[in-house]
Structures are given as C-alpha cells and as structure tokens.
C-alpha cells in the first residue's frame, strides 16, 4: 500500500530535475500524477522524458492553467495534491538583471504559483470536503533565507514564495487545505550545475567535479542532496501522515544553513 493511494496529484515543473523525482515517487506511492511542464523533456537538458501523465503547461498563462485544471477535473474528477515545483533562475546581480529577466523570474516562480494554486483551489476544496485532506507543496529555497552570489532575482522570488506559503496556509487552512514549502539546499540538478558552471558563482577555472567535491565538504553531512531526497520530504508533506503540518518552511539542506560560514582555518 502506498502513502498516496487513490490520490490525484499535479506537479508543475514535473519534468525538471526535482520535479521528475517527485512525479515518479508519487506514482510509486499509488497516486495518479500529472507531470506539467513546458516540454515533455523539461526545459533543461535531462535524461529522456520522465514519468507521469504529461500535461503541457506554461504556469505564467492563466488560460493554460485554467485549461489544465479543467482537464484534471474532466479526466479524474478530483485533485488532492498540488506541487508547485516550476522555477527558473536568473544568474545575475540586480545591476545586470534586465526588467524583462526580473519579470520572467517572478512570473514563473511566484505568479505561476499564484495562478496554479488559485485555479486548483476549487478542486482542492472538494478533496478536503470529502475528508481526504488536500495538500499544496510549494518550492521555496534556502536562498529565501540566505543569499548566494549573483542570484538576486531568484533569492527575492523564493522569499516571496515563503511568504505566499504562509498566507495561503492561513487563508485556506480552515477549508482543510494544507500549504507548506520545501526549501532545498544544494541538490544535484541541471539548474544547479548550470549555476556552478556559470560566471555568477565566482568559481571560474574549476571543473564541475572540483566544484562539486568542494560543495560536499561545505556540508556538515559531507554530501549534497539528490532529487530523491527532496521527493522524500514532498511525499511526506503530500501524504495524510502530515495532516497537522501546515504553513511551514521545511529546510532540507544536509545541515548547510545550520552553520555559520565554513571558514578555511
């Protein structure tokens, strides 16, 4: 028996690095899962198409989002779990960021979350009304608490996600809808590989292997996370075991942010 037997879930960014892991974990736990994304293979280079029922979705377009929820209602008649994992990263300081890039980052990371949550609410409310409980899991980040260099718009957008998470939990808790955010630290995904290989990180001259080996050593657990680690937490928050969990920001980072900077002494 799975922890999500009989539930229907929709995962935005469902073909991205962490989204894929969430989709396949949900399927193993017995849920019917829609993997919503811009393209079947996701928007960053990955391996193949991933699992879950593909649903083409641009979270920044309200018409797309409304159509997606209509499809879920028509095909399945219910939605128990919404995971807002779609996100983009602009690897620049505010001075280098154009207004267009800033708006794109907020459109996907924040406005997209607003739109999918808003249009999923009627379905989630019905699920909660049946006594099954409904769960929204948003993707925040440790970057919403402390800053990485050259990621200004991303850091700000994740801070907004954290506040939106608490606001949604507050407004819709009385209807039986739980809302939480997971705040991953360094997780091995195409997005973070791109950040580390890029200019903005300040790691110029080092190979990806050298950088990732150094990254391991900055963590108290001496390892960085995998998408599966994050899927473990998302799965718990989506399941009925987490029935008392709402409005919280769940940091999952191998102890990274429990320490003051790790000085080279």
């Amino acid at each position: 028996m799975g922890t999500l037997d009989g539930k229907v879930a929709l995962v935005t960014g469902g073909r991205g690095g962490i989204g894929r892991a969430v989709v396949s974990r949900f399927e193993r736990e017995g849920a019917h899962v829609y993997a919503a994304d811009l393209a079947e293979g996701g928007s960053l280079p990955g391996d193949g198409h991933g699992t879950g029922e593909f649903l083409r979705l641009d979270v920044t377009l309200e018409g797309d989002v409304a159509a997606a929820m209509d499809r879920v209602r028509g095909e399945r008649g219910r939605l128990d779990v919404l995971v807002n994992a779609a996100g983009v990263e602009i690897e620049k300081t505010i001075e280098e960021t154009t207004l267009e890039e800033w708006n794109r980052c907020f459109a996907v990371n924040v406005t997209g979350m607003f739109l999918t949550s808003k249009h999923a609410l009627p379905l989630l409310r019905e699920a909660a009304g049946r006594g099954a409980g409904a769960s929204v899991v948003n993707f925040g980040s440790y970057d919403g608490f402390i800053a990485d260099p050259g990621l200004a718009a991303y850091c700000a957008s994740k801070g907004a996600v954290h506040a939106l998470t608490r606001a949604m939990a507050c407004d819709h808790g009385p209807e039986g809808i739980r809302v939480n955010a997971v705040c991953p630290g360094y997780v091995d995904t195409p997005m973070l590989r791109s950040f580390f290989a890029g200019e903005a990180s300040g790691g110029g001259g080092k190979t990806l292997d050298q950088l990732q080996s150094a990254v391991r050593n900055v963590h108290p657990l001496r390892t960085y996370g995998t998408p599966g680690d994050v899927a473990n937490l998302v799965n718990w928050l989506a399941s009925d075991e987490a029935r008392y969990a709402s409005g919280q920001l769940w940091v999952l980072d191998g102890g990274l942010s429990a320490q003051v900077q790790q000085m080279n002494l």
Partner: protein
Amino acid sequence: MRLSGKRAVVTGGRQGIGRAIVDAFLAEGCRVETCGRGERPDGIDGAVGWTKLDVSDPGSAGEFASAVGEIDILVNNAGIQVEKTVVDSSDADWDLVMGANARGVFNLCRAFIPIMARGGSVINLGSISGRAADPSMALYNASKAFVHGLTRSIAVDHGPDIRCNAICPGWIETGMLEAGFALAGDPEAARADAIARHASGRFGRPGDIAAMAVWLASEEAGFATGQLFTVDGGLTAASPLRPGLFQ
C-alpha cells in the same frame, strides 16, 4: 548627548566589546559601573566604577546590585568561549561557559531588574553563533541561544517597565579573534578567506557593537524590545556555498 543623566552597568568592561561599550556610554553622558573577575584594569576612565565580580556567582551579583542601586541600563556583556565539541567538553568547561554566559546573565538580570528605573533597557550580548553553529564551539553556541531565549522572556515578562534586546555580533577584531587566526596553518590566508566572506570587506570593530548598544540604550529605541539585532557585516546573510572561496 544621547544618554545624559542615565546610569548603566556593563559587565566584562576590561577589554574588547565591553570596554568599547563603557567608553561609548561615557561619551554619551552616561554614568558607568563595570566589573570583571580581576583587579581594576589600567587605562580605564577614572569616572568609571570598577567592581571585582564573578557574574556566575549569585550571591556576589546580589551584593553588587545592592551596592550600585537603581540603574537605567544593564549590559550583560561578560562571556567566555571554550572551543570544544560536546564530546570533548568537561564538567569544568560546562561550569565555566554556562556559568558566565548563561547563569551570569540570569544572575545580573534577577538582581537588577527589580531596582531598574521605569523605561530601563537591558541589553544582552548574544551571538550569530546562537542562531547558526560555529564548529567546535558547542557550549558557547548553546549558551548564546540561551541568552536569546532569555532576552525574549524578559521583554515579555517585564514590559512595559523594561525593554530587553540582544545584540548578535559576528566576527569582531578582538584578542579572541587574533588568537583563532594564530592557530591556523596559514594565518594570513585564513584571515583573507574569512574577510572575503563578509559583504563589509572587513571584520567588525568593538565600536560597531558599542554603537548598537548606545542606540538600544537610548530613548530612540523606545519601541524596540524582545528582538535580536545581528551586527555582522553581512556574514550570515550569505550562503556558505562560495565557489570563489573553494580550495
């Protein structure tokens, strides 16, 4: 002058941050009484009162408060750092660190709050290490988290008569910091690496912390209570993942 006519007690005024707070309070027109475990240090202003006092001893703290009488400002600065993990720490280490940093703050607060003037300000020295951990500083980190919790309790229990806040310094140029670098394999490289992690491009100076203490003690901070004020040059605003600093 922002503190004229006020009366303050600052614990641990011999050196470093405590001494800077004593000097800043004096410059703002405050009458200052300070204390330490040893004899009166050389060079301290003649107007400053000195009492030989171990803050960890409840009886002495009470006698000190009776002798000093009513005050407006209490700064609990005295503190001790032992660089060990939990497993390496002895019972004597516990008594030393928790005695000064935790029990000492409790002792002074219990002794002085009943005789503080209405509108008084208690300022405790917490630390960024009470919010996130510095390695091999287990008891110190925990003792500062105690200070943070006690700060909120005092603010809640003793408002509106008394305000209580904590300052959480980051890395401040003191003898303690220099001793740390001296132990590094390459002290100069260690220093450069640590500075590179500060958005300020420098470590703090005792005066940076004293400036915050003056503000918290002053009427300008009349609505500030129960809070932790971090003054660390941006150190803890930044992620520890700094590829430019990887070795």
